[in-house]
């Protein structure tokens, strides 16, 4: 599903965010990216949805070499990839429903699809009762659920999560992880960058550890360190 071949990313000619990284991630896998701040986790994720271009190497997503992808095709790549962030990136002037519906509207889904899909996904993330609320009326955990709903409403093949529990307390984080686990069980490949030792150690999934841009460990059913 995702393959990196000798990928390097250098910022401004001197900062090596990623060095000669090669990784193969199968469909349906759940992968943790761990490492200190600045180790290259975010760069790894941003390379996958072509927010960044690799300096060197090849990246295949869903069988396509995304370095060769025309810029006008990038939106279609991103429709196969859901994204979840530490800071949620919800639109404050839209309700929960509208925030999720927005993701379908901008890719041109017809109105009846929006009307049926959005309540269904909000039920999945457990927010059926908050459908008309605005983001600032929700707790951090609820906001992250909305952002997961938005990322998943389009049923993407891949879900990228950049420290999704970074702003949440441990109890709330567990809820979010259960949700991501559930999404993973539907066959969606999940790649999640995290600092959260407890989560990694509890889940026991594949762990890729980065240190100053180098992959120093790739372990199935691994722990934080």
């Amino acid at each position, binding site marked *: 599903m995702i393959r990196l071949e000798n990928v390097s990313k250098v910022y401004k000619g001197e900062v090596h965010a990623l060095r000669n990284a090669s990784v193969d991630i199968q469909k349906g896998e759940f992968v943790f990216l761990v490492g200190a701040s600045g180790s290259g986790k975010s760069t790894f994720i941003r390379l996958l*949805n072509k927010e960044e271009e690799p300096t060197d190497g090849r990246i295949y997503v869903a069988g396509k070499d995304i370095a060769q992808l025309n810029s006008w095709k990038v*939106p279609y790549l*991103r429709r196969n990839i859901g994204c979840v962030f530490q800071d949620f990136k919800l639109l404050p002037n839209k309700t929960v429903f509208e925030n999720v519906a927005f993701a379908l*509207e901008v890719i*041109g889904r017809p109105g009846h699809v929006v009307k049926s899909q959005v309540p269904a996904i909000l039920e999945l993330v457990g927010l059926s009762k908050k459908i008309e609320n605005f983001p600032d009326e929700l707790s951090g955990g609820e906001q992250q659920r909305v952002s997961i709903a*938005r990322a998943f409403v389009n049923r993407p093949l891949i879900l990228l999560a950049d420290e999704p529990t970074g702003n949440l307390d441990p109890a709330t984080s567990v809820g979010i992880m259960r949700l991501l686990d559930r999404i993973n069980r539907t066959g969606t490949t999940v790649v999640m960058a995290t600092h959260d030792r407890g989560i990694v150690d509890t889940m026991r999934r594949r762990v890729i550890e980065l240190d100053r841009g180098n992959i120093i460990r790739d372990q199935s059913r691994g722990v934080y360190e």
Partner: protein
Amino acid sequence: MALKINYVARETGSNLWRNISLTVASMLTVAVSLSLFGGAQIIYHGIGNATARWKGGIEFIVFMNPTANDDQLASVRKALESSPEVRKVEFVDKTAAYEEFRTLFARQPELLDAVDQNAMPPSFKVAPASSDADVISALGKQFENDPGVREVVFAFETVRTMQRFSQYVRWGILGVSVVLMVAALMLILNTIRMAMFARRREIEVMKLVGATNWFIRVPFMLEGLIQGVLGAFVAMGTTWVLKRVFDTWLSNNQDLRIFQGFAISSGQLVSTWVLLLFFGCLVGTLGSGLAVSRYLDV
């Protein structure tokens, strides 16, 4: 990917409304610059109409009597054509003279009714080889007493002055309207940039969930287009008012009846409008298009 019309309409409308002051500013700048441009066009047409018969270096016109016979016409023509001092002669027969009369006096139907084609004098429009006023005057006067000749009319010095003056005015106004047009372009650019800045989070999310560039771009470009078109509409109104004022002034002032030729035809007004609309659309779309490609970074 299909752009949904109601989505585009909603986005464009809310953008325009959210930045209402900038929208109005851009629209007015387009309106003012296009009004000046349109005014220049109207003046240009007016002067053109007034001096139409003196185009192409024609310095005097030999008007024949309406009753002049073919022999008289032929002899004047022969004299003119064989004269080395004449560069070009153009014969205007009764039919053509009547056409010209109808155009010039289109605003005086009572005059048109009173005159029929047979009463029109045929004439020779003469472009002399020399540009010396005395030589031209002497040349023209030679024909004054020929049989069948009614009178010889010389281009007034005022017509010449008017033509020159109109060129200066026209270039001046054109220059100012170009400068204003550029200002309008930059204002529209800025309006769109502000709109995009206000919505940068939304645009970021749109890009992340896979909206195409055109999907993001179209509402902004439409916004610029609307500003340009609204500005053009205002300018069209201005030129219409200008034409009305011109017409009223000309037909109310007896002393200016001679200048009836200034009257702008509806066709000329419409062609000016088409130009205004075209430039309005161009400036609006260009401004927003530039802003989008510069700030969207898609």
